[in-house]
């Protein structure tokens, strides 16, 4: 490991947040190209599956994190509880915010078909979404935070998969439509 790689390693170790390449280049007084090269060397050292600590690219920067191999022992040592998984309602609200941000709560409710204040409140409390101004009708708008990207291991919002991939197949859609039309026709006969 050359000196620059050592310095970059130390910076990632110290910094509480992921550091973007520009930030590292600035701090080390070298070019971004040199930082990218140093990161490549570091990546060799921190190849997943060999070490207890891994190099990750999340929330628009680089950071070190522990490998899941240590999860059980880490919980015993730090006696910090697991972060609870998301409920279905929370996950739906988060998905809508992630894809449509900035988005208001009434809009979330419109899509989900249920009022969503409790789920949105929990997401705010857990710091994965935050307020982001107001719509022209005065409703608070929400967006995701860096913590969201960090917790979900996303290098950035553009790392989210295309939502069209989640749409039902044309066959499924046709079937659903068929069912709805049948239901409508039955009603008309009553």
């Amino acid at each position, binding site marked *: 490991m050359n000196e620059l790689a050592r310095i970059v390693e130390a910076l990632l170790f110290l910094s509480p947040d992921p550091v973007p390449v520009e930030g590292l280049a600035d701090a080390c007084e070298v070019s971004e190209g040199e930082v990218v090269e140093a990161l490549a060397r570091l990546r060799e050292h921190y190849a997943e599956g060999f070490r207890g600590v891994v190099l*990750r690219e999340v929330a628009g920067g680089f950071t070190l994190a522990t490998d*899941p191999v240590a999860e059980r022992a880490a919980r015993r040592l730090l006696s910090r509880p697991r972060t609870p998984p998301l409920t279905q309602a929370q996950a739906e609200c988060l998905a809508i915010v992630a894809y449509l941000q900035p988005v208001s709560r009434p809009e979330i409710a419109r899509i989900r*078909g249920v009022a969503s*204040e409790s789920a949105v409140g929990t997401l705010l409390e857990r710091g994965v979404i935050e307020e982001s101004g107001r719509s022209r*009708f005065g409703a608070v708008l929400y967006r995701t935070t860096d913590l969201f990207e960090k*917790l979900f291991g996303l290098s950035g919002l553009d790392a989210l998969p295309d939502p069209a991939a*989640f749409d039902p197949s044309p066959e499924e859609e046709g079937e659903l439509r068929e069912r709805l039309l049948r*239901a409508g026709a039955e009603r008309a006969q009553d």
Partner: protein
Amino acid sequence: MPLRSLDLDLEVFHGPFDLLLTLVLREEIDLLEVDLAEVVLAYVEHLEKAGRLDLEATTEFLVLIAALLELKSRLMLPVEDEEGFDIEPGEAADELLARMLEYSRYRAAADMLRERLAGEHGYRYRSAPLPPQLRRVSVEAAQQAYDPEQLARAVGDLLEIPPPLDLRHVRRPAVSIEQRLRHLRDLLGRRAPFSFDEAVNGADRLTEAVTLFALLELYKAGEARWEQEEPFGPITVTPGGGAQPERRSGEHRSLS
């Protein structure tokens, strides 16, 4: 008032409002059988009990109830096309389908996020305080980031003494409630029954509005009754049974 605490007791559905549209979208409840007016009444009652208006929750309610009303009104239109309706038989189904597809997209995205979070679970990030020698901001590393003129400008703003408010354009209203109350009582005493048009007889809109307000006051006090056969039709005013002339002098003080 949180929407989730709105409990409904309808013929076809008992439970929180939250659940209603979900069940409708999942076709577990027939929207045609849901009395939406009951839902609105329950909400208004709830608002009244809460005593204050949570704008966000109310907007949410309006959005949801509007969606339900729209869906229901479409479902209620006859499927066999009659003249005057240019709505295709399948349109209600299309509307519902579009909503269900949009929702299913985000439901699938939600599953993806949950899986992703579960997969990330073992990764933990370090959150240790910085070593003491790094905690202090270093003055040497600091570079100019602000324009000192910003400070001088801020002082200039603070030296500004606001001009006294110009109130000349605010006139005292030329029509007072007292005046219109007197006028109506006079008519009630002399010419009842009379029509509202007679009472305002060619006066301007402000006078009309204040007269209507005065009439409401008389109605509330039981001094007058009014009838309107059809929307926009003539309003007929008759004396009410509960006129209490002895209270006249003081009862409307709060309006002045």
